[in-house]
């Protein structure tokens, strides 16, 4: 039996975070969604179905077939890449059935005879037809539909992930002047990680997992549950509140609460980031701050693909696409969506939606200096962290530049009229 992890049409709801990566590479807890799915499928041949423009990049990053119709010639287990597969969530691979949550297919086992009848070359069509063609089983599943749901689930998933690793104790360097405030067995400090003097690891609300080569500088206070990815650095005096996941090679200072930093991102200085997801190679200038609670305590709405969506939640921050930069003192409104490769300078009350690649200067959207210069900046930023912009990544960025052109031009035109 083959397994196919797919993206459905709802990838667009997860923009800007999903512009440069398939939805299953989004992070929650210690892992990306795909890192949770694959270990549940030992011994199966996995393949992916993703947006066409992402296929070369995904093929390069994984050693699996991508967008290959041969996938649908035999028994196939289809799994939605938006599934946050945690704990003991059931995955029945014995009976032909479509397991659905709301209007979305979570996963389905489809036998060879059925799949050969249904497959007509379009994944979207196949996904629409499967629930009617095989037994339909309702399933309570965490299918990530919007970015803020990753933030919502993160604290719970962080606790589950700590238990699942089974790792405990101080194997790295822990300065004697630092303290674990709370149950000491709720800390794992990997070999090669360093906790400098006068650091407080507060485990009263949850565990703290510190990966290899992390450095935590003096005066920092970290509350659990929290995950610090390899080579991440926590700056002196930082206040890392509960419920944070930081991917690898981040630099984090100031105050951060219930947020996910995908990886390779800098928030070096003071300023508050809360209930937010920050993409890769983002640089948040000193004092950059986001609101995550409205003054009237009403639910937060977020712009999603041109429409304002009520999250139903009181605390929602901002969503930053990859390679975006903010100036010193930039303040984001509650529930902002900031595209990829934006360049935003401080000024007044900011809009809630920033199309990708836009520059925001003197309270106006502007064109900026063009894609070539942005790519050059991306190359420089990545080289600083010993990463290269691959031809596949560059091709994806160029595609998204065209995909988002109309959004960007509309914002610039509107801005000039005001």
């Amino acid at each position: 039996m083959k397994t196919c992890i797919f993206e459905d049409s709802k990838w667009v709801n997860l923009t800007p975070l999903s512009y440069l990566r398939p939805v299953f590479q989004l992070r929650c807890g210690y892992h990306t969604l795909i890192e949770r799915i694959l270990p549940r499928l030992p011994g199966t041949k996995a393949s992916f179905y993703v947006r066409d423009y992402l296929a070369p990049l995904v093929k390069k990053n994984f050693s699996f077939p991508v967008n290959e119709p041969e996938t649908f010639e035999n028994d196939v287990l289809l799994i939605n890449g938006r599934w946050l597969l945690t704990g003991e969530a059931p995955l029945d691979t014995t009976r032909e059935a479509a397991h659905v949550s709301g209007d979305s297919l979570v996963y389905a086992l489809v036998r060879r005879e059925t799949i050969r009848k249904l497959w007509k070359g379009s994944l979207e069509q196949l996904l629409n037809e499967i629930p009617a063609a095989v037994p339909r089983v309702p399933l309570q599943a965490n299918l990530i539909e919007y970015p803020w749901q990753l933030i919502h689930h993160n604290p719970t998933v962080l606790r589950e992930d700590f238990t699942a690793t089974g790792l405990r104790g101080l194997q790295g360097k822990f300065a004697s002047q630092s303290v674990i405030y709370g149950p000491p067995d709720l800390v794992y400090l990997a070999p090669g990680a360093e906790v400098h003097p006068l650091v407080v690891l507060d485990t009263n609300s949850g565990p703290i997992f510190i990966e290899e080569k992390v450095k935590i500088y003096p005066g920092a206070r970290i509350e659990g549950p929290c995950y610090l990815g390899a080579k991440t650095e926590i700056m002196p005096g930082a206040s890392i509140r509960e419920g944070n996941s930081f991917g690898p090679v981040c630099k984090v200072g100031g105050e951060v609460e219930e947020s996910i930093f995908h990886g390779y991102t800098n928030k070096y200085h003071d300023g508050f980031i809360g209930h937010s997801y920050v993409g890769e190679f983002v640089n948040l200038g000193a004092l950059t701050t986001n609101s995550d609670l409205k003054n009237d305590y009403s639910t937060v709405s977020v712009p999603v693909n041109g429409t304002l969506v009520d999250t139903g939640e009181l605390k929602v921050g901002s969503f930053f696409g990859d390679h975006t930069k903010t100036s010193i003192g930039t303040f984001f409104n509650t529930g902002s969506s900031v595209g990829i490769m934006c360049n935003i300078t401080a000024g007044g009350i900011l809009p809630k939606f920033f199309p990708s690649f836009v520059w925001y200067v003197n309270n106006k959207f502007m064109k900026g200096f063009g894609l070539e210069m942005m790519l050059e900046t991306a190359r420089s930023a990545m080289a600083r962290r010993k990463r290269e912009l691959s031809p596949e990544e560059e091709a994806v960025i160029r595609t998204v530049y065209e995909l988002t052109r109309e959004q960007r031009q509309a914002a610039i035109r509107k801005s000039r009229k005001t």
Partner: protein
Amino acid sequence: MEHAEIEARVKKVTAQVLGVEESEIKPESRFVEDLGAESVQSLELVAAFEDEFDIEMEEDAALQVKTVGDAVTFIARHLK
């Protein structure tokens, strides 16, 4: 539009955006080195030229415009 009219309007817009006297602006004046355009003002200049002449300037092409004369030539080509 005549070349002279384009040049006059480019000078007017440049003077407004950069806060310099029109009389100081020559075709060979470089926006950054001679007229003191900051990077943000360069963006504003592009926007102002687009509004003044009702044209679209591609970002990467606009980046090649270094002098007032370059801007006049660039805009004249767009208006044809």
